[in-house]
């Protein structure tokens, strides 16, 4: 980043006012400040940040080993020693929730890096090329959309066998179509713009235009969509975990924790309440963050 720029002002370059060049860094700081101005999106930022901190520093935050069983203290109610109580094997629920954030983030991260590029590629290609490419891609998308996503995910996991990685693949397969549709709709608005025509006149290949021109313009709304999508991903992952098809025990996954806690729910409410609250809080946070990002990134809402 060049910070010392002297702007020679040639007499004919009218209006070449020597305003300070805002650097990329200040742009990010400014955007972040803007995001935090709205209390709702600010709370989203805080909770997501907390989730990140929990996942990274899990060994430091957790008070116990999440896998260590203590059969002498099963189903203990919340106390100073066990903040959120213990489960049916005497494992500390607080520590399990803290470690569970790693599982949750792992799922979100994997699903997003699978879904984002696939959706972007299919969407921009069908929007830009149109014609039969569009028809083929969009019919495939329609087929995926017409199934209820949980049922489709269930079918995939049933076919592949239960497990965290398989759950990720199943969720990714069910959640790319809306992203592709969005990317296609965005592409349609940009594909005839003057800068794309200019690039075509320069002899740019279709793939260059897709990657260097159109994708860049689709990114903001795609990021918003993916952030909102994370909430759904968390819920689907929890549902799969609850049904026993996601993360396998003893891995501390929030949905699975609720599932096993269900049998003791009436006597020991904390087995279900804390993981449930964690799921709710985090998916709410991603929704709020998504809303905030939309206000920030999407020019149409201004």
């Amino acid at each position, binding site marked *: 980043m060049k910070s010392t*720029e002297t702007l020679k002002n040639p007499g*004919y370059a009218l209006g070449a006012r020597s305003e300070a060049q805002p650097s990329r860094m200040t742009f990010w700081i400014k955007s972040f400040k803007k995001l935090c101005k709205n209390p709702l999106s600010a709370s989203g930022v805080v909770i997501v940040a907390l989730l990140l901190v929990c996942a990274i520093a899990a060994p430091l935050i957790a008070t116990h080993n999440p896998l260590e069983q203590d059969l002498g203290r099963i189903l203990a109610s919340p106390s100073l020693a066990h903040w959120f109580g213990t489960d049916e094997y005497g494992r500390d629920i607080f520590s399990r929730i803290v470690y569970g954030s790693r599982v949750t983030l792992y799922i979100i991260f994997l699903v997003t890096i699978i879904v984002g590029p696939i959706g972007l590629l299919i969407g921009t290609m069908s929007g830009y090329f149109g014609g039969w490419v569009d028809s083929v891609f969009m019919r495939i998308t329609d087929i995926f959309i017409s199934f209820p996503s949980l049922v489709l995910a269930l079918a995939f996991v049933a076919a592949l066998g239960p497990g965290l990685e398989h759950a990720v693949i199943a969720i990714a397969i069910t959640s790319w179509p809306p992203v592709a549709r969005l990317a296609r709709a965005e592409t349609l608005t940009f594909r005839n713009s003057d*800068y794309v025509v200019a690039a075509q006149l*320069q002899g740019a*290949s279709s793939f260059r235009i897709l990657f260097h*021109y159109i994708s*860049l313009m689709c990114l903001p709304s795609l990021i918003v969509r993916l952030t909102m999508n994370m909430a759904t991903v968390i819920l689907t992952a929890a549902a799969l975990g609850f049904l026993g098809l996601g993360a396998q025990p003893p891995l501390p996954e929030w949905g699975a924790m609720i599932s096993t806690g269900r049998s003791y729910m009436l006597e020991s409410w904390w087995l279900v309440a804390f993981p449930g609250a964690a799921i709710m809080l985090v998916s709410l946070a991603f929704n709020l963050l998504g809303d905030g990002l939309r206000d920030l990134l999407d020019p149409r809402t201004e």
Partner: protein
Amino acid sequence: MIAIESLSFDMPGAGKSKRILNDINIHVGRGECFGLVGESGSGKTSILKCLAGQFKGWEGGIAVQGKSIADTSLKERSNTMQMVFQDPYGALHPRHTIRKILNEPLAIKGLPDKAERIHKALKDVGLDESFLPRYPHQLSGGQRQRVAIARAIILDPDIILLDEPTSALDVSVQAEILNLLASLHHRRQLTYLMVSHDLGVIAHLCERVAVMKAGEVVEVVAREDLIEGNVTHNYTQSLLQHAFSRE
């Protein structure tokens, strides 16, 4: 340089197609500055879009430097023909820096000495290198149009298509851009095909003007005849009258 012969184009629409260009014949010589003038819907921009490959399925013949453009791809034509657009906001990619915008044509062509070429193009349009790290939204309308012109000339084309290059600008900026276009025309021996609704602008820059109405060329007039009012067609006369009455 540009030979358009009996060009017709039907815009495909829902159900019926609409004829927007009808039997256009235009010949632009090397180094000439040729104008297309007419009111909205007269088809003047459509001719540029046919040349630029945005409209496909036209009938007739368009030849650039003796080669029919039906036989050459846009990529092959990119060294000969570039375009400057009306809207300086929409013509530059909002998320590319000026450096990236000017580097793109060079990167596509794989040309060496990129920095040197960018420097020269910027100098030719009256900007300096301090603009390179900026984004289009940090520039004024006139500066943006200068960048768009720099992008058009950076590949050293022979022909530049100008689509109302100044109508979105303030008059004082319009004067600067017109001066710039005139001096580039002179220095680089460019051929211009310029579209405008403003007779004053057209007559300032162009030596010959085709007057268009409802998809047809009604008359091709030399600048001197236009200024002296030596025009034959009624429509040209009424356009001239309006233009003179405003001065």
